[in-house]
């Protein structure tokens, strides 16, 4: 466990990450560094303006309880610090966010002093390379309050020998349901969420930056879309403790109109067998909400996730 005095500045980490990404190329099997970062005392009292900006952008109601999406943002610099280390074998730029599973076990309130931890784990095979989990935790008085697991894909890299093989099962057939909402995402969507989250990855903030990574235009942050769905379900329905998952498919090219179906899980026709709770894919969760996003008028699937009270 490596102690840091405070949360690092994302701007500096990105500069390091950009510089370091070029040198991180596939060679040999991927070995993750045995390191865990920890900031023992983060005073959230200074986050009031940041929280207000986050709430306004995502549509979260004004409240002193930090939404899971905000806790993800709060811990993001520490997870990034892990990823920009020289001995972290995968390049910060160019990694693809595949899915995110976050759990809020108890509410974290503005003004509370929290402990933040982050590490990387479980490098394993993906059919297009290697996938890795970045885990971020927020603790209050020593008790785990939030855990977020972000799974990224690094294309072309090789999983460690002995790691679980890639899931080769074909993707389930999917047809768009009737929408419950329509999001018009302007060309500035990436810059707006970048300003609030600190994630200024150029694929989100500029068309030129996106082109450098093979996208025709800037793409929305996946976490922006997931956090909007979380906000839309809202505190009254997700409860104090909840799980929030998302799986990303095709990226949202900006500007774009995204059709969204955010539905009560109870309203969904059970697909075959009774599903295991909480997985981001296939099976339906036992309660809570299921959300889907796709390009309006097209079958291009963007994301799917669940929000479930714990």
């Amino acid at each position, binding site marked *: 466990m490596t102690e840091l005095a405070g949360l690092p500045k994302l701007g500096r980490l990105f500069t390091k990450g950009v510089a370091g990404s070029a040198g991180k190329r596939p060679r040999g099997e991927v070995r993750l560094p045995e390191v865990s970062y920890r900031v023992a005392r983060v005073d959230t009292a200074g986050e009031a303006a940041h929280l207000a900006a986050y709430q306004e952008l995502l549509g979260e109601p004004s409240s002193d309880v930090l939404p899971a999406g905000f806790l993800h943002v709060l811990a993001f610099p520490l997870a990034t610090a892990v990823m920009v280390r020289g001995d972290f074998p995968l390049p910060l730029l160019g990694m693809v966010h595949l899915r995110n599973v976050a759990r809020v076990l108890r509410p974290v309130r503005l003004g509370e002093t929290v402990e933040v931890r982050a590490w990387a784990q479980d490098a394993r095979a993906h059919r297009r390379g290697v996938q890795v989990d970045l885990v971020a935790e927020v603790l209050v008085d020593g008790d785990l309050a939030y855990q977020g697991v972000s799974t990224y894909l690094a294309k072309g890299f090789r999983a460690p020998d002995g790691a679980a093989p890639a899931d080769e099962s074909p993707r389930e057939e999917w*047809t768009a349901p009737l929408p*419950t909402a329509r999001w018009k995402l302007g060309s500035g969507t990436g810059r707006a969420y970048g300003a609030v989250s600190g994630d200024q990855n150029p694929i989100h903030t500029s068309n030129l930056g996106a082109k450098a990574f093979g996208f025709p235009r800037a793409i929305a942050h996946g976490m922006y879309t997931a956090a909007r769905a979380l906000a839309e379900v809202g505190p009254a329905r997700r409860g104090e403790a909840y799980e929030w998952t998302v799986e990303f498919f095709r990226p949202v090219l900006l500007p774009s109109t995204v059709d969204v179906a955010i*539905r*009560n899980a109870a309203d969904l026709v059970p697909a075959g067998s009774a599903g295991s709770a909480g997985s981001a894919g296939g099976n339906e969760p036992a309660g809570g909400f299921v959300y889907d996003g796709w390009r309006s008028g097209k079958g291009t699937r963007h994301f799917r996730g669940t929000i479930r009270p714990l």
Partner: protein
Amino acid sequence: MSTTPAPVPSTREAVIIGGNRIPFSRAGKKYVRTSNQDMFTAALEGLVARFGLQGERLGEVVGGAVLKHSKNFNLIRESVLGSSLSPTTPAYDVQQACATGLEAAIAVTNKIKLGQIESAIAGGTDTVSDAPIVVSDRLRAALLDANHAKTTGAKIKALLQVRPKDLAPATPSTGEPRTHLSMGEHQAITTAKWGITREAQDEIAYNSHQNLARAWEAGFFDDLVTPFKGLTRDDNLRPDTSPEKLAKLKPAFGMKLPDTATMTAGNSTPLTDGASAVLFASRAWAEERELPILAKFVDAETAAVDFVHGHEGLLMAPVAAVPRLLARNGLTLDDIDFFEIHEAFASTVLTTLAAWEDEEYCRTELGLDGAFGKVDRSKLNVNGSSLAAGHPFAATGGRIIATAAKLVAAKAAETGQPARALISVCAAGGLGAVALVESV
């Protein structure tokens, strides 16, 4: 869900004396630069003139507008002050989207029934042509900051936050705040869910124009409408439209859905300007003044649905409200002589009727033992509705109440039997208001 209706406490009756409105006009036509207050005052003055209420102190005047500027905080009171009613007549504004006019009527008739007031006018007005335009949130924030700033330097600093794109105004839209889908798109989803056909919708639209045209020709509206700004009839009315013409129109909503788009400008209501007002009273007040009594405003019910997560369609709340209203009054659909179902879209009427005929839906969603029942189409919107007349949001309730009251009065006079009308109005926000009107 409780299925046993609570006993209705006995109160005195609230009666409908008459109504008045100005002809409804498509947005951007006759009533350009005519304010909500102008229009409501005109509707009010016509009603005052018709029943000789000049100088009269009424119990209350209640109404509202859906698209309302904050400077019109006392829109109805200001209209009263501009009318020939006594300036000692109290007034207040209400707003419940498209159900505003009907909700205003529910409010005043309840006060009459309780004996708190003897007489009242309820109504509403809306203009799309003169709609308030809102500045962007960023410009608004900068202006407020500048306003609160104490020094000139701080004021300038606040105003320097403004960027050119912040100057673009925000015009009002029919989009739902939580879903960002327009009302038409929401109804297109409901239409797809219920599999309502294009032909069925066009038929509703055609009938609306035919029925409204016939009613105008027959002089039905002679004592319900006051000409305004050179307009003597609703200018959206197309007596010469035909099923063939309606079938040629391109779809306007639901183009992004997997199902074939069926909703067109012809089977959806256009944006409209207009105002309406209805005079209510206790029976004693009306009789004292020898005013005609058309009907009783018997009872009303409101409902709301969870549309945000697609559990129910945005405009389906009246589907739940009507069975509750009828049960409380010991009635079924067969006891109704006139169905006045507001035509927000032709498909709104059709999804409402389809839901009532669906056994499974009525059991699971409405808590009934089986299908609620079938509406006799020959009793539906017999003198036309919003598809033909247009729909100036808050003014629609008053238009429908006056029409329903006249219809039941005429039917009762003709048959010597009591006649009943059921009014159903859907509204944004998943809201619905319904009411029962009965001959005296």
